[in-house]
């Protein structure tokens, strides 16, 4: 296998890791105003993701670094092309990151409310924008022969890509709700269950719509495998719907997690061997060949990644083990 194909796969894996892990902490952020009625409850919710969110976010940074190292032209065209969208996401991630740290450093309700809103907005925007972004990669954006993006911010917004955004938003929020059913107790557990059951229906509808629209908006279904995996994402989501109602939160988390995995796999599969589709001319699409680094750089990076990724997985898994207990009001520190 060529190394640039391996790196395409590896970047896919990094995005899966990012969506799977940070998906639930975005979800918890989005649910914060709905499930946290008072300051104490919000603190419980935040503490369920407190030890993890920062480590989860590094998956995104690593994916960004990996795109830069392995496919410089992809990095350059994507980030200069999706400029305003990316900028909005950066702002969201900035305020969200400091909000987690700052919100409890002052007692005043106005201060806490402000940062809690920032956590909400800062989680909602990336959860939405990632769906918009990856559906745009697949649907195609105006890229000229010289690899430069020629559209604007508004080019990125179409009914199809907005449905993509809605789907990631709902699936991530559902992921957060199911995560909370595993990490809370009592009243909050009941609230999280109710939220998960409503969200699971909405998420399934959004994903169904996305799949149907993908037939006319993309060429994903010309690849049988990608099509099957995309539909499989809906099947696991429906299973999650049922498992939530059956009270089997652990399995529901696994199934919804699989939905995230399958949907991401489907989109990357649909893309391959392109990394960004040009809507102007199929020949102008960026591909794993014309966007990639030199074979030498890919070789070096492969050795580094194959050594380090297992280590990272190991110690991140260890932290989830250390903080496996449910978080309750009793655990809050006064």
């Amino acid at each position, binding site marked *: 296998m060529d190394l640039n194909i391996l790196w395409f796969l590896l970047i896919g894996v990094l995005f899966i890791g990012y969506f799977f892990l940070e998906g639930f902490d975005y979800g918890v952020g989005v649910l914060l105003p709905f499930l946290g009625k008072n300051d104490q409850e919000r603190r419980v919710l935040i503490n369920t993701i407190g030890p993890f969110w920062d480590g989860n976010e*590094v998956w995104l940074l690593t994916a960004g670094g990996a795109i830069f*190292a392995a496919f*410089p032209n992809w*990095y350059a065209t994507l980030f*200069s092309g999706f*400029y305003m969208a990316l900028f909005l996401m950066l702002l969201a991630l900035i305020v969200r990151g400091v909000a987690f740290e700052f919100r409890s450093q002052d007692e005043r309700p106005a201060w806490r409310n402000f940062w809690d809103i920032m956590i909400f907005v800062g989680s909602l925007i990336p959860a939405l924008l990632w769906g918009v972004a990856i559906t745009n990669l697949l649907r195609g954006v105006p890229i000229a022969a010289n690899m430069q993006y020629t559209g604007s911010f508004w080019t990125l917004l179409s009914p199809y890509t907005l449905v993509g955004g809605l789907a990631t938003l709902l699936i991530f929020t559902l992921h957060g709700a199911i995560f909370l059913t595993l990490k809370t107790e009592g009243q909050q557990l009941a609230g999280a269950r109710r939220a998960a059951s409503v969200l699971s229906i909405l998420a399934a509808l959004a994903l169904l719509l996305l799949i149907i629209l993908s037939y006319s908006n993309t060429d994903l279904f010309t690849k049988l495998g990608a099509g099957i995996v995309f539909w499989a994402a809906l099947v696991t989501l429906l299973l999650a719907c049922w498992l939530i109602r059956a009270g089997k939160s652990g399995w529901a988390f696994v199934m919804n997690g699989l939905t995230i995995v399958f949907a991401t796999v489907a989109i990357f599969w649909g893309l391959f061997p392109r990394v960004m589709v040009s809507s102007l001319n199929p020949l102008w699409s960026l591909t794993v060949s014309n966007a990639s680094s030199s074979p030498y750089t890919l070789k070096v990076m492969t050795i580094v990644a194959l050594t380090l990724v297992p280590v990272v997985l190991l110690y991140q898994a260890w932290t989830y083990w250390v903080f496996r207990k449910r978080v309750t009001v009793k655990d809050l520190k006064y």
Partner: protein
Amino acid sequence: MEALILARLQFAATSSYHFLFVPLTLGLSVLVAVMETIYVRTGNDIYKKMTLFWGKLFLINFAMGVVTGIVQEFHFGMNWSEYSRFVGDIFGAPLAVEALAAFFLESTLLGVWVFGWDRLSKSLHAAAIWLVAFASTLSAFWILAANSFMQEPVGYIIRNGRAEMTNFFALLTNPHVFYQFPHTVLGGYATAAFFVMGVSAYHLLRKNQAEFFLRSFRIGLTMGLIGTILLVGVGHFQGQHLVNSQPMKMAAAEALWENEAPAPLNLITLIDVKNQTNHSTIQLPALGSFLAHNSFTSEVKGLKEIQAEYETTYGPGNYIPPVTPLFWSFRLMVAAGLWMILISLYSLYLLRKGQLAARPRTLKALLWSIPLPYIANICGWFMAETGRQPWIVQGLQKVNEAVSPAVSAGAVLTTLIAFTLIYGVLAVADLYLLTKAIKRGPQELPTDKPLASKKEASLWT
């Protein structure tokens, strides 16, 4: 052209802002780790209090460093897409390795440290903060290895219209990084040391928890003394290296227009960029030659000569960076460094005599010295980056060839304004929280043990 200037402004603003938080993270993580280690070794609760107090300040600062760092990672693609295409084959690698090897470790273990007080054994908990400190330093190495390629390209070949990596090992052993890495990390240590010394001085002035703050001060001072003295040494050798590798940068920093043998050291001068000369100079004879080449007689090349050489090599153009701000930022950095050594030595003397707490003027001077390392850090980076102009990668690509063609001036202006506003608001919030936590001082540990374990995790909540 306008987009270029705005993109440069944005890079300068966001990078400088990011680097207000990074040095303190680098140094304070080590100091907090030292404090917690003493606590684990001695079981003395005062060191636990110390770990919690300074740890809280560390966390407030750390959050700002992390979120502003995210921008740095995506910046190159957003505003500098042609740079990214040109050097991505080389420059992307250390950034990716940084995320994989260092940033993962730092973020994950910090979460463990903050929330793990009652979930881990004492020594494992202390190990977590040591790993955070180690990861921060490692992170600095990879970032600086990337930056060093921009200053002194090595291990590459120009092929397919871009710079391609030929030797990863050469990238890691770039001579430039072997000066820049210790210089930057020691700068971080000095920043944290003066932060701890200054904050301790604030409380000593108010006769507040004298024992706690004298002990904190001693730990800070140890790092401050070692850090600043080594810093000046490393800086000296780095300067000598730059005379050879980036002669234009050093000649501009010294405002040396003509070749001179021996070259004097200009202490203060009025620089006349238009006529390429200086007026009313106060200088020390032959010291410029000594600093550059360890010899009182050797010739040091001036700006005009280097400009002529570059024109022969790279074609017509202006290769002289802005001399006046470089000259003054260099002097400001060196002056700050020397002041830090002096006041550290004097504090050591007072501390040994047991008189530090009784010297309000020294304590005030220490308090007001907190900003100095910050100023020195920014001046140093200003010199490193502006001194390389007009190049973005020394000798290979110019800044005006690097900017994103797909991004309009309006878009850059919008993001520049938004970043400035948000960063401004965050700076106010950050300073407010830091001063609040500093003024409140260390908190008593609860006596009840089971409760204690819960109170400890309150660093976060």
